[in-house]
């Protein structure tokens, strides 16, 4: 029976706590009597037979949807869209959930005599995936059957001929999505729901949308009114996507949603100590920690990065639901909360977040300074329900090396954003007003996005907007162990050690502040009362 999440009150006998620091980790001792460490629930039991569970879900859909075989018929246009490289984190071991589900859908399509089938990777404004990444996601059988015939596509949010404008919501939001998806007799969307934010109407309304459509919810105002993105009921991001999703459905696009959840078994067995509670470390765990940290200390960053990027998580499927979008998403969200929710009493003055090597936007890539802010103050800060873990005016301490380094192929617009925009201002509203349009419509970025493996020109802006809620809420953000020049460019304060950071924080939150440390990864969601 997996244990639920746990909040440890730190006392004098509490051992130092594992804190991630990019491609590495440290053991940090927290002040006794006023600190707490929040541990994620243990991995839920996986499904005994995931393939059978997928078939069962397709045959017994939720909501008002008919079973999938009844929706399939000869001479129909079937489009199967699926999540891109940003999910799950780290990438899971083969077979990926997407492969299991897509193969099951294709089995039924073949049985129904469906010939016109196209697969679309729902990139939104993310980079195009490489062949190896696609093969990993959908499996070799699917790739070899569809890619050589041009039937395995990657969504192009800048293709004027491949998009269709379905109308405007009652809030005046443009809804423009993939033409192939919109004009299909059935659109099957295959999700991997890593966090509560994923899935639902966001799958189609964001994953298959254009910049013209996305800008309505990927903006500073929406982020400031989402408390938080993980709480659908209080998230403006979701409200906007739900309006768009309902308009898509009203336009006649039939969506059959399939959502899968994973347990939080994040690291291979030899690195299992990374998600264990420190006082339960065995001699083997301690030896592995020492060997890993000593090894990493003499490993060049480039090599360390490829080692960490090669980690494939032993995530296992814990549920699969199919059918009508909203009914499916309700069931999925419940499973995600079961795996990730930790009940926490009250806010603290300081929150410490050790940032790992990975965020959704640097799989097989570099976690550049903008992504450090996005991961720390965007995603992890928002991993709450109810109230943020840190009080208004409090301090967030991030731990990450924050190198002044960018992947030139994946993140070209990030380089200019960092060099030009952040050198001018770090205020999200100012940035949005002054610079967004120019980057979003830049022909060179557009070309790289469409033909190379580059994120869209506007993508770094969105990453910065994710942090808008945190910037608005907290008094100060400090990065421990970051490259000072890069940290200052981000508008944050560099600190050489956690002790220094805590000392610096006292200027903002006073002496003897209370501290929360999120023991990440694995991912968890703090339900703050």
């Amino acid at each position: 029976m997996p244990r639920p999440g746990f909040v440890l009150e730190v006392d004098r006998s509490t051992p130092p706590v594992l804190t991630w620091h990019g491609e590495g980790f440290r053991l940090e001792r927290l002040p006794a009597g006023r600190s707490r460490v929040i541990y994620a629930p243990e991995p839920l039991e996986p499904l005994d037979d995931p393939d059978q569970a997928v078939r069962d879900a397709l045959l017994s859909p939720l909501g008002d949807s008919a079973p999938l075989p009844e929706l399939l018929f000869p001479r129909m246009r079937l489009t199967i869209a699926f999540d891109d490289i940003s999910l799950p984190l780290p990438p899971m071991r083969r077979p990926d959930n997407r492969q299991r589900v897509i193969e099951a859908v294709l089995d039924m399509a073949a049985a129904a005599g469906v010939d016109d089938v196209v697969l679309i990777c729902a990139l939104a404004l993310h980079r195009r995936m490489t062949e190896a990444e696609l093969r990993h996601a959908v499996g070799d059988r699917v790739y070899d059957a569809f890619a050589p015939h041009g039937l395995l596509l990657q969504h192009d949010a800048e293709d004027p001929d491949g998009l269709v404008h379905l109308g405007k919501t009652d809030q005046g939001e443009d809804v423009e999505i993939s033409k192939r998806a919109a004009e299909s007799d059935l659109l099957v969307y295959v999700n991997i729901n890593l966090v509560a934010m994923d899935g639902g109407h966001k799958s189609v309304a964001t994953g298959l949308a254009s910049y013209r459509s996305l800008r309505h919810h990927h903006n500073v105002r929406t982020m400031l009114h989402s408390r938080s993105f993980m709480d659908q009921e209080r998230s403006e991001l979701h409200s906007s996507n739900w309006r768009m999703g309902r308009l898509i459905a009203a336009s006649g696009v039939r969506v059959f949603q399939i959502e899968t959840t994973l347990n939080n078994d994040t690291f291979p067995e030899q690195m299992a100590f990374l998600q264990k509670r420190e006082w339960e470390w065995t001699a083997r765990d301690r030896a592995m920690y020492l060997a890993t940290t000593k090894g990493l200390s003499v490993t060049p960053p480039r090599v360390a990065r490829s080692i960490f990027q090669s980690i494939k998580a032993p995530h296992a499927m814990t549920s699969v639901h199919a059918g009508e979008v909203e009914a499916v998403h309700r069931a999925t969200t419940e499973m995600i909360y079961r795996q990730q929710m930790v009940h926490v009493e009250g806010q603290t003055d300081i929150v410490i977040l050790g940032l790992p090597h990975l965020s959704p936007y640097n799989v097989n890539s570099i976690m550049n300074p903008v992504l450090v802010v996005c991961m720390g103050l965007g995603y992890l800060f928002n991993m709450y329900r109810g109230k943020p873990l840190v009080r208004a005016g409090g301090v967030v301490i991030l731990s990450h090396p924050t190198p002044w380094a960018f992947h030139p192929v994946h993140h070209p617009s990030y380089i200019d954003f960092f060099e030009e925009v952040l050198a001018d201002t770090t205020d999200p509203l100012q940035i949005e007003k002054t610079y967004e349009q120019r980057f979003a419509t830049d022909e060179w970025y557009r070309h790289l996005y469409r033909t190379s493996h580059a994120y869209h020109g506007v993508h770094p802006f969105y990453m910065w907007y994710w942090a808008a809620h945190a910037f608005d809420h907290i008094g100060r953000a400090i990065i421990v162990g970051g490259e000072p020049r890069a940290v200052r460019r981000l508008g944050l304060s560099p600190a050489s050690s956690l002790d220094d950071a805590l000392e610096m924080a006292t200027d903002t939150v006073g002496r003897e502040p209370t501290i929360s440390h999120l023991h990440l990864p694995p991912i968890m969601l703090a339900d703050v009362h």
Partner: protein
Amino acid sequence: MSRPDELPGATTPARRLPVTPGALRSLRTRIRPTAGAFPLAKPTWPGTVPRPPVQRTLGTEYDTGWARRYPVRLARVLVQEFVARPAVRAIADPQVSGLDRIAHLEGPVIFAANHASHLDAPLLLSVIPERWRHHLFVAGAADYFFDTRPKAATFAFLLNAVPIERRRVSRDSLRRLTTLLGEGWSMLIFPEGGRTPDGWGQPHSAGAAWLAVRTGRPVVPVHVEGTRRILARGSSKLTPGTTRVTFGRPLAAGTGGDARVLAATVERAVAALADEQTTDWWTAARRAAARTTPALTGPQAPAWRRTWALGERRRRTARAGGRRDGGRWPKASDGRSPRRG
């Protein structure tokens, strides 16, 4: 030429070993991780986290079942007969009496003996008649013989030891021992709960009596004398000598009897056997009948007087046995050798 302030025989600095105690201490400090240096050392347990119940596999929880399987029993018989018994005979020269009192007994028996030395158990295992000897387990202190895995395995194999608490015997232990007695195993137990610290006996606990009442098996009181001089508590030196083992008349409580009454009876019986050792059977019998048998626990007096009284008793024992302590060769037979008992 020595310096004037140098004492005769003193080691000159040049001849001293280069490794001084101070240097060793400093080296140890450098090699050994500092206290609490997690992850080199074990992590400490946060005071705010309740400890999970530990699945104990040692102490009373140690499973000795393996030591009663046939291959292990066969190996133990070989060790006992060809190694332990000759060794005990050579070291302790046991003089056994009273075997005629238990000659008629059948089935499992509880042997309850006084306890003065680690030698007691091997000595008794070498003199208890064969019909019980190889189908007998020894109740051993769980905290002493079963505190580490190697120790537990060694004593389980050599003595067929079964763990038991020293004083307040738990229900689980009693149930385990009852089961073994029910399966036909005899038991050797030292009701004093540990070796004598000063030569005098200690009050008996009621464990043996409780088991006798529960199972209806007889208790055979046994008195051992002389083992403390061969291997005293706290000593690691063996001084070969002579020992005397006296078996008493079996005591039957019958089921439904009072364990505390039986425990007191066993204690008095062992004291009477000790009295028989120091005087003679008739004197001891009369004193037992009059309830004037000297207590095994010795006089309630300061330590020196207890030691003094012990010396007096030892002299009486030597006179009664007609032997000198430790003197074994040339051996004088008094007709009480184990071969004839």
